[in-house]
């Protein structure tokens, strides 16, 4: 009975939960790439983006509100604040006091959660289908305003510090590589700070910070509301207008410059870990810009090189060399390649024995990548597209509708076009072996990567 390590929160869209089917499928015998997720998209006069995507598979509904504020752009003297603030959204609003939001969802037979990512913070609930109006009312209530006491803030500072301790400070390989690597690989503070937060910064948060953060970022014109599941569109539109349209919009600050300087030489770092017993390595390559041909090519390269037991890195590092029992990774450890909006890494990591030199592992990366620039056939690409499609179905069907909601919300927030969910596969199919070769040569070069090695310092 073994347990996997080193995968905190990784790929939750694709891996975490069982699959709920929430796809509308044409009645005719479906061709495999015939996927059509229903998408109704509109905006309220106050700027709130709304996406409706009904399906009748189960008598449940899922509601997600995604705010266009992630930990990347939190205030500079308040590391970890975006995430601490996420906790405050459960601490009381005009009509629901502390614990009342949570109790209301649960006593109505639902589940809920929230999370903070690079470029958004999300809040969602899955409830029986007859409770859609209840969920919309509650989300609108906390979008209108919060009522937070000092006592509640202090309480959640304690909870969040314990969260950092259990996931990072008291854990072997804590924060490796999902929290560590962006700090080593990136140069721009927005991409390179400790987004879980220094404990001192978490302690220094004040009620006025909560208030200012809410006023700045938690406005309808900085959010998208997505509804998925068993509902009638007309009724949903009516309730959305009724509960959300009177919430005033705000003037949003200009988005800071997130760009990273071009990397010109390989970077290597060693981090000592007094709780770990075995060395570990992570290798991160800077991604091409979103939605470019090279970006889609990287999605396929991820499938070819890293995803699944047939992938070339798995075959080389696990099966042939036996350096490790598994190699894991992907694009965006806190989500997927579709739900971020800024500089990103394609990254992988593994634990190995101290009898193996880190350079031997790096050399396998070099060989595998060198090989992919020479040896890539149309069949290889076809296989990569099949894996991508199967993974997309899992993502779209996953987490009781929340997987689909995350895609729709990201495409609405970042591209103003949630219907992109239905054209993704076409974009991958446009990629030729030539683009793959060029992308691998340009982006998977040693000069574009950062290597982070964990050095165990505990007495064994």
């Amino acid at each position, binding site marked *: 009975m073994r347990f996997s390590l080193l995968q905190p*929160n990784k790929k939750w869209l694709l891996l975490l939960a069982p699959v709920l089917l929430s796809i509308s499928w044409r009645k005719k015998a479906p061709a495999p790439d015939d996927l059509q997720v229903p998408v109704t998209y509109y905006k309220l006069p106050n700027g709130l983006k709304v996406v409706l995507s009904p*399906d009748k598979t189960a008598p449940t509904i899922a509601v997600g509100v995604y705010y266009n504020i992630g930990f990347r752009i939190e205030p500079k003297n308040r590391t970890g604040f975006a995430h601490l603030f996420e906790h405050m959204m*459960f601490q009381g609003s005009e009509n629901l006091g502390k614990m009342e939001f949570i109790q*209301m969802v649960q*006593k109505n037979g639902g*589940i809920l959660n929230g999370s903070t990512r690079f470029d958004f913070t999300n809040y969602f609930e899955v409830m029986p289908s007859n409770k859609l109006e209840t969920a919309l009312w509650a989300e609108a209530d906390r979008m209108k305003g919060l009522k937070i006491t000092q006592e509640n803030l202090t309480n959640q500072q304690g*909870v969040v510090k314990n969260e950092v301790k259990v996931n990072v400070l008291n854990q072997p390989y804590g924060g490796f590589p999902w929290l560590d690597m962006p700090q080593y690989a990136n140069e721009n503070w927005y991409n390179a700070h400790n987004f879980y937060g220094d404990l001192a910064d978490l302690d220094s948060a004040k009620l006025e910070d909560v208030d200012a953060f809410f006023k700045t970022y938690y406005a309808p014109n900085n959010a998208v509301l997505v509804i998925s599941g068993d509902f009638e569109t007309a009724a949903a539109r009516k309730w959305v207008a009724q509960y959300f349209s009177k919430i005033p919009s705000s003037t949003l600050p200009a988005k800071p410059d997130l760009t990273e300087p071009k990397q010109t030489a390989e970077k290597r770092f060693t981090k000592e870990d007094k709780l770990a017993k*075995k060395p570990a390595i992570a290798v991160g390559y800077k991604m091409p810009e979103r939605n470019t041909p090279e970006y889609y090519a990287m999605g396929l390269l991820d499938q070819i090189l890293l995803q699944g037991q*047939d992938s070339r890195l798995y075959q080389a590092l696990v099966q042939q060399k036996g350096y490790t029992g598994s190699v894991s990774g992907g694009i965006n450890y806190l989500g997927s390649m579709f739900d971020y909006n800024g500089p990103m890494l394609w990254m992988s990591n593994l634990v190995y024995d101290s009898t193996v030199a880190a350079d031997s592992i790096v050399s396998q990366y070099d060989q595998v990548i060198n090989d992919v620039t020479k040896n890539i056939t149309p069949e290889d690409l076809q296989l990569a597209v099949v894996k991508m499609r*199967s993974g997309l179905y899992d993502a779209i069907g996953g987490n009781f509708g929340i997987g689909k909601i995350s895609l729709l919300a990201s495409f609405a927030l970042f591209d103003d076009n949630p219907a992109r969910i239905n054209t993704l596969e076409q974009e991958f199919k446009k990629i030729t072996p030539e683009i793959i070769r060029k992308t691998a040569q340009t982006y998977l070069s040693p000069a574009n990567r950062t290597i982070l090695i964990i050095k165990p310092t505990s007495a064994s």
Partner: protein
Amino acid sequence: MKLFQNTILSLFCAAAFLPAFAQKQTPPAGGAAKDFKLSEKKVQPYPNGLKTTLVHYGELPKATISLIIKTGNVHEGENQVWLADLTGELLREGTADMNFAALAKKAALMGGDLNISVGMDQTTINGSVLSEYAPDFIKLISALVMKPAFPASELERLKGNLKRQLITQKSVPQMQAQEKFYQALYKSGAYGRIFPTEEMLNSYTVQQVKDFYEKNFGAKRSVLYVVGKFDDAAVNAAVKSSLSQWKAGADVSYPQAKPAAMPDTILLDRKSAPQTTVLIGLPVLTPKDKDYIPQLVTNSLLGGSFGSRITSNIRENKGYTYSPYSSLTNRKGSSVWFEQADVTSEHTVNALNEIEREISRLQLEAPAKDELSGIQNYEAGVFVLRNSSPAGIINQLNFMDLHGLDDSYLNNYVKNVYKVTPEMVSQITKDYIQYGKMTKVMVGDKDAIQQQITKQKAAPKSF
């Protein structure tokens, strides 16, 4: 970076719904609930003892396929810990005609991975593939379990992987706590053996793996689940030409495991740890018991959900911890209840006191009707979610199969949840969740904890 750490389903439920202040608006109640119908299952027994269970679910063009075999760590000998895991690893290496690389590629072309996971009671071989490949994936699984190569050439590498996992897992505080906890409850029984020694792993041979496989794998112990979208006739034909021909193998057989309550405090030193990993619990009623569902409801109300009493107290009120939860863990023929939390070191004993306080409060006084009905609604809602995904459906059906529950468990589940009364919740807590009988494992800074215990003993109880 999530509000709550646990995965969606294992979580939260409602406790007391605080009365809204008069000036506040109350949430709209919503319309009438729609009916939920469980998806129909088709069960087919085969002469060799194999059983298949097919469930059509949803419209997504994928099928989830699991062959679940009733063997696992439970069938290891005393000096064979993780031999079942090694068997799973070596099994995955392929057949004489199809090595690992070929097998992995075949599965990938179907849009899936072939995974083997070994648990205490069961070994699962599964994957989720594009619908049209469901029959081919069944044949792939069949080839593997019916004609495994168990290649000696891979043995040392796989043992190396297990040794690396052993060392890394034993450095994780939550794993250290679990090992101590299950050792205390199950003693030298299989369920008490969580980790092997490195020497044990070194000693395993291909012959031992083959023996384990011969003795424990076979059709009589196996159920094949296919859930999602697929062609019945093609799936049945694939089973007929493959798994239905498998050797019958041994009958299902589990050793009797009778864990005993072991009131004890076990401290494991982790110098200057910022948190103490607390794991406390005891054996409780099994799924076969008529009071199992009342016990589930009691667990949700006490500590098994985010709105539960213990979580409300030590997280949302005191801020001692991020990740507290209580849970029922079922082994074949026995079950344990435990509460686990990673608590700020200086509040270790305070957190234990609060947990004890919540348990005795529930023993002394039945919960309010509103609080209980909130939990019941939550359990009914989660029941729908649990049965609304292919993986969830397989989990549910396998749970019933392993523990010998018939369809009435599922069909009457919601009704039985609503039958639970406040008095039953209090009585269950009194009869089974007794703080004084619990094994209390703490992994943390021993000196800091000892000091708190000493101080606690000197002070009179506050409740």
